[in-house]
C-alpha cells in the first residue's frame, strides 16, 4: 500500500483538517498506519524529543505524529522497523516497570530515554533500542524543522528571489574570520 499522488494530497488535507478540528473541539486525528496504542506512544515520544520552549512549540504542536503516519505508508520499507521499535520500547518498559511506555510515569519514561537516547556510552544490551531511537529522532527532526514553525525557529531566510547576489553579510564573515579578497 503506497499513496498515489491524489491520495497523498487527500491524506495531507485530512491531516491538516483534523489538526484544525482538534484545535477547536479536541477531536483526534485518526491514523492510517499506527494503531491507537502506537499512536499514543508516538505522541508522547516526539514531545519528549522536541518539547515546547520559549522559541517555538513542541513536535505535536508542529503536527509531527500525522506526518510520521503519512511517511509510514509513503515508504513501506519503514513500517517494520517503526512497528517493531515501538513494541521493543514497550517490552523494555514492561520488563522494568510492568507497564507500557505510555502507561509509565514521566520519570519512568525519562529513565528509559536516559539509557537509549545517548549514543556516547549506552548501557550494554540496549543496542536495538538505541538504533530505533536514533532513527525515530531523525524522523521527528524532519517532521518538526520542515514546518513553518521549525523554519522560523532556525531563522532560515532564503527561498526568495534575490536581485543581486552580494555574497555573505559582514556579520557572517566576521564570525568566521574570513573576508572577500578585493
Amino acid at each position: 500500500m503506497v499513496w498515489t499522488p491524489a491520495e497523498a494530497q487527500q491524506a495531507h488535507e485530512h491531516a491538516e483538517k483534523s489538526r484544525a478540528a482538534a484545535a477547536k473541539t479536541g477531536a483526534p486525528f485518526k491514523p492510517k498506519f499506527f494503531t491507537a496504542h502506537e499512536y499514543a506512544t508516538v505522541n508522547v515520544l516526539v514531545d519528549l524529543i522536541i518539547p515546547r520552549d520559549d522559541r517555538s512549540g513542541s513536535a505535536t504542536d508542529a503536527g509531527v505524529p500525522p506526518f510520521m503516519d503519512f511517511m509510514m505508508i509513503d515508504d513501506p520499507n519503514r513500517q517494520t522497523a517503526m512497528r517493531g521499535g515501538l513494541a521493543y520500547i514497550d517490552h523494555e518498559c514492561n520488563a522494568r516497570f510492568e507497564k507500557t511506555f505510555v502507561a509509565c510515569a514521566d520519570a519512568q519514561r525519562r529513565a528509559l530515554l536516559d539509557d537509549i537516547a545517548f549514543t556516547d556510552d549506552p548501557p550494554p544490551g540496549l543496542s536495538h533500542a538505541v538504533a530505533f531511537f536514533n532513527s525515530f529522532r531523525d524522523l521527528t527532526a524532519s517532521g518538526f524543522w520542515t514546518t513553518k514553525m521549525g523554519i522560523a525557529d532556525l531563522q532560515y531566510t532564503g527561498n526568495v528571489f534575490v536581485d543581486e547576489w552580494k555574497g555573505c553579510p559582514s556579520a557572517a564573515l566576521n564570525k568566521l574570520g574570513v573576508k572577500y579578497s578585493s
Partner: protein
Amino acid sequence: MQIIRRSESYDVCVVGSGAGGGMAAKVLTEAGARVVLLEAGGPWDSAKDSKMATWAYESPRRGAGTPTKPFGEFDGCVGGWDLPGEPFTNAPGTTFDWFRARALGGRTNHWGRISLRFGPDDFKRKSLDGLGDDWAISYDDLHPYFDKLDRLVGIFGSKEGLPNEPDGIFQPPPKPRCYELLIKEAADRLKITCIPSRMSILTRPLNGRPACHYCGQCGRGCATHSNFSSTSVLIPPALATGKLRIITNAMAREVTTGSDGLATGVSYVNTIDRREYQVRARIVVLAASACESARLLLNSKSARFPDGLANSSGTVGKYLTDTTGVSVSGFIPKLADSVPHNEDGIGGMHLYMPWWLDNKKLDFPRGYHIEIGGGRHAPTFGVMGGIQRLNGVGGYGKKLKDDYRRFYASTVNFSGRGEMIPNDNCYCEIDPRVVDAYGIPVLRFHFTFADHEIKQAKHMQETFREIIHEMGGTPTSAMPSREQLYGLANGGRIIHEVGCARMGADPKTSVVNGDCQAHDVKNLFVADGGPFVTNADKNVTWTILALSMRTSERIADKRKRGDL
C-alpha cells in the same frame, strides 16, 4: 497487434531529448532538416512543472524521495535507478546501478550544471600514460564548439590558465559563501587549488533568458530558464523553426534497416497505448544515453547484422565507465551558531577544486576534482539527520532542541569526482532471458573497478579528511577499509556513464568514427556519451553538448554535400 507505420518521413530521427539529443534537434532543424525527436518519458516544461520555491511543508512528505524522484519529490527529473516496469540485471559479482531519466529534457532537468570542458590531455591519455585509448579527435577539434556552446548556453567561471582545465567564455562568477571562504583558506594552506566553480547558470541575462535569482534550487528545474536544461535552451529554438516534431512516451526498441544496410528509421513502443509504431527517417541519431543507445543497437538485430547494428567490431556495450565518487562530511565547530542570513546562492557550489597533483608522485593514474557543499539550506526531509554525529551524543529534550539550532549548517561535505579508466570487465550486453514491460530485452551489466580507481578513492578519503581537520573539524564517518573500496560509490551512482559506442579510426576496435558516425552504417550517428573514449575528471555533459554540436554540424554538412 499490428505495427502502426507513420506515413510521414523525416530527414532525421533523434532518439532521446537530453543534452545530446536536444543539441542535435536544435542544430539540425536550424540547418533546415525536418526532425522527429523520440522521448521515452512524458512532456516536461520547467516554466510550468518546476517545483521551484515550493516549501517542504506544502507537501505531506516534506520533500522526501520517491521511486521516480530519488533525489527528493521536488527534483526536476523524472527517473531513477529502479524504474517500475524497466528492469536491468547485473552479472554475478557485479553491482552496477543504472539511472534512467523519463521526461522531455532527460537528466538535464536536474543535473548539477557543473560545466567543465575536457582538456587537451583528456583526448590523448594513452599517448601520455599508456592506459586506455586515445580519441579519434583532439581538443582542438572541439575547441570552437566549446566556445560556441559557452556563448549559446551561458556559463560563469574565472580565467585561470591552469593546465588541462581549459578556460571558457565566462560570465562573472558569484561571490563565495562564507563557509566556502573557510574551505578555501584550508585548501590554500594545504596547497590544493580552489577556484570559482564553472556552472551553466546565468549571472547575467543571455539570449532572452534572465539572470539567476539565487534561490539555490537549480535541481528542481528553473522556471525562469536561468540555467541550462535541454528544455530551456535547446528544444525551444528547435521548435521555433517549425521543423521539429516531438513524440513523447516513445520507447525506442529497434533501429530499422533496409536491404542496402542503411538505417531507415526507428520502431518504438508507445508507453501509454503499448502499441508499436515506426517512424521513417533518412538519418538516425542516437542520444538515448550511453547504455540505452547501446541497448538499442544490440536489440537491432537482422540477418545482415546478427550481433546488432553497427557492431561488426563487437565493441557495442564495451568500455563502459562511470565517474568515480567518494564523499566525506565533516562537522566544523567554527560553523556552529551561524549568523542567520540567506546563503542560498546558485543551486550548487560557488567554489571547487580542480585536479591539482602530479601523477608521477602518486600510486594511481589520472585525477579527480572536489565538489564542496554546506550552508544554511532550506530545511527539507532529512534535515539534521544523525545529530548524534554532530553533538556527540544525540539526546532528547530542551538540550537537543538547542543543539539542532546550534549545529544547523555546521557541516561541510566534499565529493571527489574522478577518472575511471575503461577496463575489459566493464560492459553491458543483452540479458538473454529478461524483457521489460514493453517487451524489449534488457541490459545485463558487468562492472568491476580496477586497482587504479580503488587507490584513487583512498587518496580522496585521505584528502577530504585532511581538509576537514585543517578546518578544525571532525569527519562524521570513519575511514572505510580496502574491503569497502574506501567508500567508492557503486558504478552508475554518479550518473556519468559513458562509452559503449566508442569512437576510433579503426572499425575493428570502435563503433563510430571521429564524426560519431557508425563505421558500419553511414547514416547512423551517436550523439550522447557513447562515443567517449575516456571519462575525464570533468563532468561529462559539457563535452557531450560540444561533441553533439560538432556531430550535428557534420551531419548538416554531409547532407548539404549529398553524402547522406
